[in-house]
C-alpha cells in the first residue's frame, strides 16, 4: 500500500530546445488541465524568443542530422520507439488523463504511437528508392533525382491527439533528415513533455526535435514568419482564419506549407507527410570516354 502521508515530489515542466530543458526565457507558465478541467501541471509558456531559440537549435542540428546515413537515422527513430515502449505505462496514464480516454483506449493510442515510430523508422532508407529515379534523358547524360530534406520544419501538433498525433507529424519529418520545432497540443501538453524525456535518451542529436509548449495564437505567427524556417505543418490549426494568416506569413520566404486537413491518426498513414517536406534534387553528368 502506498504511504498516503508521503508528500509527492512535483515536477516543473520545461521546454526542450537543442537537447536541453530550459524554462521559458519569459519566465511564464500556464496551467495544463485534464479532460475534466482539473489541474495537471504548470507548463512553460513559450515566448517569441523561445521560438527563435528553437529554430536556431534546429538549424544548427540540420547539417549533422541530414548528413547521417539513412540507416543511422532509421536506427535512431527505432530507438525512440524502444524507449517509448519502456515507458508505456506512464504514457498510458498521461494520455488517459489529457484526453479523458479510458485506460484501454489510451493503451491502444500509446501502442499505435510506438508502432507508428517503427513504421517511419523503416522508411529512412527506403524513401529514396521509392520516390527517387534515374531519368532516361534523350542524350549522352547520366541523370538521376533524389529526395533531400527541405531543412527546418515547424510543426503545430494536433490539439486533440496529444501523443499519437504528435508522433505522426514529427516522425515523418525527422526520419528523412529534417529538423523540427514542434508546438505541443496547447491544452494537452503533458504527453509531449514526457516524450521529450524519451527523445533526450534516444540517441537523437540535440536540436533535431525541439518541443515548445504554449499558446498556438502567440507562438505560431513567429514560426510562420521566421526566415530560417523552410516549411510549416499546420496540422494543429483548427481556426481557418489563423491558418490563412499563417500561410500568408509563410509566403515571405516561400515556406512549404502543409495545410490543416481532416486526419484519422489511428489509420496507417500514406507517404504524404514524409514527401511534403522533401525536395527533389536532379543531377546531370555527361557520359563519354
Amino acid at each position, binding site marked *: 500500500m502506498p504511504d498516503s502521508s508521503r508528500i509527492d515530489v512535483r515536477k516543473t515542466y520545461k521546454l526542450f530546445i537543442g537537447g536541453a530543458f530550459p524554462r521559458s526565457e519569459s519566465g511564464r507558465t500556464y496551467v495544463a488541465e485534464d479532460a475534466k478541467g482539473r489541474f495537471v501541471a504548470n507548463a512553460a509558456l513559450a515566448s517569441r524568443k523561445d521560438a527563435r531559440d528553437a529554430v536556431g537549435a534546429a538549424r544548427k542540428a540540420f547539417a549533422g542530422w541530414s548528413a547521417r546515413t539513412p540507416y543511422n537515422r532509421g536506427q535512431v527513430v527505432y530507438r525512440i520507439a524502444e524507449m517509448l515502449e519502456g515507458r508505456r505505462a506512464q504514457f498510458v496514464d498521461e494520455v488517459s488523463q489529457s484526453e479523458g480516454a479510458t485506460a484501454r483506449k489510451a493503451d491502444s493510442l500509446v501502442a499505435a504511437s510506438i508502432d507508428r515510430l517503427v513504421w517511419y523508422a523503416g522508411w529512412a532508407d527506403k524513401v529514396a528508392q521509392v520516390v527517387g529515379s534515374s531519368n532516361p534523358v534523350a542524350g549522352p547524360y547520366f541523370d538521376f533525382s533524389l529526395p533531400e530534406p527541405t531543412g527546418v520544419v515547424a510543426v503545430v501538433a494536433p490539439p486533440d491527439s496529444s501523443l499519437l498525433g504528435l508522433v505522426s507529424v514529427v516522425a515523418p519529418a525527422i526520419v528523412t533528415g529534417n529538423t523540427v520545432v514542434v508546438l505541443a497540443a496547447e491544452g494537452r501538453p503533458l504527453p509531449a513533455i514526457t516524450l521529450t524525456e524519451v527523445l533526450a535518451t534516444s540517441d537523437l542529436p540535440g536540436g533535431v526535435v525541439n518541443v515548445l509548449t504554449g499558446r498556438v495564437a502567440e507562438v505560431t505567427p513567429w514560426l510562420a514568419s521566421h526566415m530560417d524556417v523552410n516549411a510549416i505543418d499546420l496540422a494543429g490549426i483548427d481556426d481557418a482564419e489563423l491558418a490563412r494568416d499563417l500561410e500568408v506569413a509563410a509566403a*515571405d520566404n516561400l515556406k512549404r506549407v502543409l495545410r490543416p486537413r481532416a486526419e484519422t491518426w489511428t489509420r496507417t498513414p500514406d507517404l504524404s507527410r514524409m514527401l511534403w517536406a522533401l525536395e527533389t534534387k536532379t543531377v546531370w553528368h555527361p557520359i563519354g570516354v
Partner: protein
Amino acid sequence: MAFEYAPAPESRSIVDLQSSYGLFIDGAFVDTTDGRSFKSVSPATEEVLAEITEAGPGDVDRAVKAARRAHTRVWGPMSGAERAKYLYRIARILQERARELAVLESLDNGKPIKESRDVDVPLVAAYFFYYAGWADKLGYAGFGPNPKSLGVAGQVIPWNFPLLMLAWKIAPALACGNTVVLKPAETTSLTALAFAEICQQADLPPGVVNIVTGAGDTGRALVEHDDVDKVAFTGSTEVGKAIARAVAGTDKKVTLELGGKAANIVFDDAPIDQAIEGIVNGIFFNQGHVCCAGSRLLVQESVADEVLDRLKRRMATLRVGDPLDKNTDVGAINSAEQLAKIRALSEVGEAEGAERWSAPCELPERGFWFPPTIFTGVSQAHRIAREEIFGPVLSVLTFRTPAEAVEKANNTPFGLSAGVWTDKGSRILWMANQLRAGVVWANTFNRFDPTSPFGGYKESGYGREGGRHGLEAYLNA
C-alpha cells in the same frame, strides 16, 4: 585573323501574322468583353508585330467556365488512352510546324533562331510526346492505383521560353485529365496563340485548352479565380510570393518555379576548354534570360586568371545581333523594361566597386540590346552577386577550398540550379550532395529533358516540373 560571317537569315515568310488576335476560349478565337488591347513588338527591331487582347476579369471568368465545363463533361471522364492520342496528335503537329514556330518565337521573343529551332521547339514536342504516354499509365506513377485529376488549372508563364514553358505547363496538366486556362507573358503571346490554332487543328475538344492573353492583372484574375483548382506559375520570386499569399486559405494546389542566382563552380582540375563553353552556355544562352542561368561564376583562385583570359577571348567571338540570322549566338533583350533592369543593376555593380568588362561587339541601332558582360572583383555582398539580373551579365567570384565554394554557392535565398566543373568523380558527387539546389549540372550546364524533374529549393519555388515527379502537381495525390 578575324573570321567574317555573311548573314544567313532564316526567312520569316513561313510565318503568317495576323494584325490582331482575340482570346482563345472554348475552342474559338473570340473578342474581349471587358478587356483592352496592346501592341506586341519585335524586340530586335521594335516593329509592331500584332495587336494582342488584354483579357479582363470577365474574359478570364468565361475561360474558367469553359474549362470547367470541358473538365466535367469531356476531358475528365475521357479514358487516359483517348487523352493520350490527342496529346500525341498535338506533338506531331508541333513537329510539322516546327520551323514556323521557331521563326515566330525568335521574332516575338528575340532569341536566336539557332536556339528556338534546335532547343525550344524540339523540346516542346518532346514534352508533349513524353506526357502523352503518361495519360493512360497514371496508375503506375506512384500516386495510388487510380489517381484523379484536380480540375481546372490556371497557368501563368514567363516570356523567356514562351512556347517551352507552355509545354511544361499544358502537357502534364492535360495528361492527368485537367483542363487549363493559360496566360502567356504580355511580351510573348504569339506562339501561345499559334498553339491555340494547333489545338483546333488537333480537334481537341473545346474548352480543354483556353489561352487568355494579357499582363499582370489578367494573371491575377486567373490565379485568384474561385473555380481554379490548381495554380502553376513560372516567373519572378516577387510575383511567386504574391501568388502564395493570394492562394492562402484556399484548397488550391500550387507549384511555383521562380528566380535563381546559380553558382557555376570551376575547380582547378576542370577541363578548362569545356568549362569555358559551360560558363558561356550557362550565362549567355537565351541572353541570360534563364531562371537557372549560371549567373555567379565561382572559380578556384589558382586558375582564375587563366579562366578569365580564356573566357574573355571566347566572349569576343560571340555573335550578337539579328535573332533570325542562323549565325547569331546572342539575340535581343526581350523588352525595353528588361533592358532597363539589366542596365540599372549593371550600373549598381560598377557603383559598388566591381569591374565591368563587355565583349567588343557592335549592337544594332534599333531594338533592345545588351552586350555579353562580366564583372570581376565581385564580393558576396554586392547586389550583382545576390539579385537576379536576368540578362547576359556574369558576376565572377573566387574560392580556395571546396568547403568555401559550397558556402558561397549556398549563400543565397535562391536554390534553383548549380554547376560543377571538375575531373574528380568523388568531388562531383560530394558537391552535388552539398549544394542546396534543385538541379545540379556537373561538367555540363543548362540541359533540359522531359524525363528530368526541374524545380527549386528555398525561394526558387516549390514543386517539380518534368518527369514522373511532374505529374504530382496535377493529380489528387
